[in-house]
């Protein structure tokens, strides 16, 4: 499997999932259990991605400048800062800590 295959297969699957929603009858998925499971799967995947993106380097767990950056992002989200402010603040926080040599 090369990179192009991965990109095309994943992209077509994601696009197909969007289109499916316009084809199926509304009653099929808007039952409470499938809707709840789908919502929670999104939550779990995002939370897992945050953990991995914040703590993992390959297969190792590493605590570095990403941790304070994500905590700052959480604080800003808690006070309802705009999305773009949160992202930029996290990047600047990590970059500055690395520049000062306070974190890897």
């Amino acid at each position, binding site marked *: 499997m090369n990179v192009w295959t991965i990109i095309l297969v994943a992209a077509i699957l994601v696009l197909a999932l969007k289109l499916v929603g316009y084809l199926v009858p509304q009653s099929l998925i808007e039952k409470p*259990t499938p809707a709840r499971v789908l919502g929670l799967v999104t939550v779990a995947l995002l939370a897992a991605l945050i953990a991995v993106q914040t703590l993992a380097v390959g297969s190792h767990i590493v605590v570095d400048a990403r941790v304070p950056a994500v905590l700052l992002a959480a604080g800003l989200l808690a006070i309802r800062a705009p999305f773009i402010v949160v992202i930029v603040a996290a990047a600047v926080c990590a970059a500055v800590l690395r520049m000062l040599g306070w974190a890897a």
Partner: protein
Amino acid sequence: MARSNDVEDTTAWRASLSVAIPVALYGVSFGALSVASGLDVWQTSVLSLLMFSGGSQFALIGVLAAGGVAAGPSAIAASTLLGARNTLYAIRMSPVIGRGFWRRAAAGHLTIDESTAVATSQPTLRGQRIGFWVTGLAIFIGWNLMTLAGALLGDLLGDVSRYGLDAAAAAAFLGLLWPRLTALQPVVVAVAAAVVAAVLTPWLPPGIPILAAAVVAILVGVFDWWGRRS
């Protein structure tokens, strides 16, 4: 009558653009990170054009960055599972979009977190339609242009972690997650999923810990643990 339509349209346009512009700008970060994860400029641009779903795109390049091409199947699975929420959005948007094959196909491609959120926040059908199409199209154009800019920039920048872009990706996922943490059940699932993914990371190939975390959600969801018993 025309007068109230004008006000309504202006409100919907304003809501659309206030969401679309910052999200589109964020495409720069995706482009740069994608190049850093090993994709070239073309692959990065095709991904944004064809997949067009930020969470899934970041998931794909995140897994590929950690595990390389060998992690391809997990990368595809993670991005596809994360894209499954778009199916729910599409079902919700279906009556707003109306009939017509091409219109529904185009709407399908533009069905993402932001276009659905802006549309559902408008009080009238007319406002919902404006909200969906303006947000979707503005992000589609902006996101793809900014992805290309970011990919070209990423080639020049070299090590993106110097600029904190790795932390920015984590913060972006957090930004997508935050509005969903409105009850005990999603909070429990989020914490458990994060712990599962982190604990399994040293033991399993990249991508698999993320998929394992999804199992937590399926269990909690099917049995409705910590749910609102109403």
